[in-house]
């Protein structure tokens, strides 16, 4: 089963991962903020992940690790 891990410490909440995900796995949190004040990305539908790594390819901060 495929899954992603988001390093919330480095996430800047830009949303490029969510935009790239073909399965709507990721969405930006509406309330959870990291120490830098960014609303972080989170895997809201982890079961849909197919491990395509599109999110990681578009993440400018290398915050995402993908496993399959």
């Amino acid at each position, binding site marked *: 089963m*495929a899954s992603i891990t988001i390093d919330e410490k480095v996430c*800047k909440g830009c949303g490029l991962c969510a935009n790239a995900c073909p399965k709507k796995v990721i969405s930006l949190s509406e309330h959870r903020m990291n120490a830098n004040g960014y609303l972080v990305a989170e895997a809201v539908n982890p079961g849909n992940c197919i491990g395509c790594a599109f999110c990681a390819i578009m993440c400018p901060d290398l915050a995402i690790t993908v496993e399959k």
Partner: protein
Amino acid sequence: MKVFEKTKMLTDAHMHYCPGCTHGIVHRILAESIEELGLEEKCIGIAPVGCAVFAYNYFNCDMQEAAHGRAPAVATGIKRCLPDRTVFVYQGDGDLASIGMAETVHAAARGEKFTVIFINNSIYGMTGGQMAPTTLVGQKATTCQSGRDPAVNGYPIRICELLATLDAPYYIERVSTQDVKHVLAAKKAIKKALKFQSEGRGYTFIEVLVSCPTNWHMQPVEALRFMAEECTKTFPLGVFRDKSQEEGNAHA
């Protein structure tokens, strides 16, 4: 099994770029390319002045920080003395196409055997959004607040096309970071350039279109769309020089 994890060619330092700026993507694909080609053990990078000024904190190899626009001259000094090393130059549009235009053109004309990664986001990012030599006609910047007016500010400079008028460059390509497909293509181009360098072929130059959500005053996703729809009109993607193809044809 991990299908995607961070390359060891990048340090653990958190990058300082603004949210949604695709600079980080270019750092990643450049670093991955170096690692995948097995060049990480003899690599020297040159950081510019501009948004990527802190690049020396991110690439896990020896780095020199150059004066504004002078990175190609610095790289010339290194590569000429140490021709077996992999030398890459990382510059933005103000650094490369404005203050460092002479260094850029002459390094290309001499056919210096290093790889230039040129980040074109059509704005001065680090200093707060002033007009760049690559600012699009009509695009707003803090020093052309009604938009770039050719009658006053002239036109954007197309560096790939300009360098392609020279005889020496071996490989010149313009790529983009607008979506997954283009990022993969950008990585392929960068890897190709580094491979050519490792084979001692000649000057290699990759222009990468990058977004600047902060100074374009756009949401990150909207900025990718602007890059895809507007930037590529002025800066068409493609290969402007590939001597490996020409050599291939000559042999055929």
